[in-house]
């Protein structure tokens, strides 16, 4: 299995999925295209390119030769950002992003629990002040800030 086989195959599957999802959109006519015309045309093009990429993929790097040494760490970082995004509006910016910074610095990067806590608190509070007070941004406040009287 080679890199181009994986990407080409994924493009083919995506194109088929788009084509299946376009059934409800009116295609219109060639002279007067409807809302489904352009997506359908693009999906067919993607399908064709995907097939060509798979067919010509013999010269691309083998999948096992691609260096994946950082993939485990990347998956952990991704999972932490995803959890932060899930909690962003419920917990608010300070709590959700503060926790993310703490976990990344103290636990993932092993910079020490106390240092991680100090870093997370300093960065998140300074950023919150900068974004909301100086730049006038509207960030989710969550339950913590009203409880603390802010």
């Amino acid at each position, binding site marked *: 299995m080679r*890199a*181009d086989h*994986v*990407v080409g195959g994924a*493009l083919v599957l*995506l194109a088929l999925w*788009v084509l299946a*999802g376009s059934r409800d959109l*009116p295609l219109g*006519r060639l*002279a*007067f*295209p*409807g*809302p*489904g015309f*352009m*997506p359908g045309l*693009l*999906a067919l*093009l*993607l399908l064709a*390119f*995907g097939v*060509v*990429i798979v067919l*010509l993929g013999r010269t*691309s790097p083998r999948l096992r030769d*691609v260096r994946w*040494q*950082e993939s*485990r*760490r*990347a998956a952990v*970082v*991704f999972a932490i*950002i*995803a959890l*932060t*995004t899930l909690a*962003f*509006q419920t917990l608010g*910016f300070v709590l959700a*992003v503060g926790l*993310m*910074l703490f976990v*990344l*610095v103290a636990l993932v*990067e092993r*910079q020490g629990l106390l240092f991680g806590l100090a*870093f997370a608190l300093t*960065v*998140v509070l300074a*950023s919150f002040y900068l*974004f909301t007070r100086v*730049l*006038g*941004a*509207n*960030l989710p406040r969550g339950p913590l800030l009203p409880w603390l009287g802010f």
Partner: protein
Amino acid sequence: VPETLANLAFGFAVVLQPDVLVFAFLGCFVGTAVGVLPGIGPLAGIALVLPVTFGLDATRAIVMLSGIYYGSMYGSSTTSILMRIPGAAASVVTCIDGYEMTRRGRAGPALFLTTIASFVAGTVSVVVLTAIAPPLAAFALRFGPPEYTALLMLGLLVLAFMSSGSMVRVLAMAVLGLLVGMIGIDPMTGHFRYSFGLAELGDGVSIVPLAIGLFGLGEILASAGLAARPAVRHPRLRDLVPSREEWRRSQGPIARGTVLGFLIGLVPGSGHIIASFASYALERKLSDRPEEFGHGAVAGVSGPEAANNAATSGAFVPMLALGIPTGPVTAVLIAAIMIHGVAAGPQLMVHHPDVFWGFVASMYVGNLMLLVLNLPLIGLFVALLRVPYPLLYPTIIMFCIVGVYQVNGSVVDVWIMLVAGVVGYLLRKLDFDIAPVALGLVLAPILELSLRQSLIMSNGNYAIFVQRPIAATLLALAAVLLALALWPTLTRGRDLRRRVAEPGVEPPPDLR
């Protein structure tokens, strides 16, 4: 010419107001910092600052954001030269000979020459932009939907043709971006397309979360857990002055890099990246000592740096004159002024001369500011590189989340950024170019709308694309390009692009 000079004087009157100067300086400063720091490209930097500009007017917004763009081109060479890590993709080539110069104790002259090259290329290309953008905008008033359709199709083919890799792979990535651009309400019929029941997707996928995900988060995921960076060498101010020989050997490459970079910047795609590679290949071909390339050749540093800066100004020409973005960065800049009710394109100069000429004049001032920022303050920017990566990347992630959330106040955009980050990471690992995806997303609505408007104009007759002279010429050029790309396959001959690129300018494996 007198009219252009009078307009330029008006632009200087706008940009020399104290508060506009402050925003220009802030843009240049942030841009240099963004360029110096690996992992944050110009696009992520602009997107992060974008929400800040909502409270400004269009002139101040574009002056600040464009300062980040060309400022990052200046700053990105610093990391390449001192650490062999490209600060931005455009400086990958500079790593090769720039770091070799550092190893030989010539880091100071390398930094000095890249700054001078950036300044000369930036300024000369702004002069050319000043001269050609107004007549091109006047010419573009003749453009209707068929011409825009033809121009965009030509642009996509040029992008695929100019890339060093397989044309099919680039076109597949562009089509993927175009397909993502189909998400949202159809502007002509009001149908919801692929919105998955999310009202937030009604306006489509915005370029900001997609670009920050692909370029910013994708890079962070790819560099997660990598070994500590090499030590930073910090040249002293007095060590910056190059020798007479180094000066002499830089002049030609800077001049050629400026011309080449500006021309490449005019066409859609990652112009500044392609320009730096093309300049390196050209200098190596023209050099009487090609064996020095890869071992600290001054021309291998000054030429590409001039080229990537000139390409930045070149990219502004279609943006200002035609309202067409040549890449994700110019797309975000167009979006930034549209938020203030100002549309880029041929009418910009007529209806908003303060924005158009203020922006052009700001680039003269900005280049001067960057010259001052990049030489005496080199120590300050080098200090940024000493921030440990385990502290830097969580902070960058925080800025990414806030920057994306702030644009629409929507957490759906943060999810889009996350998905784009994973896609960008995987495509990068599997050696696919991600820039065409972002460009496709940007061009999709313009291409679809202009195609359908053309057909309404012609009552469904496709001959409209060949009956109008400008559209027909553009399509003929596209056909020639396609023929040139297919010719080697049909005749089993050698690809023209490969011949131009020889001798190889592939970066070392650890820089890919």
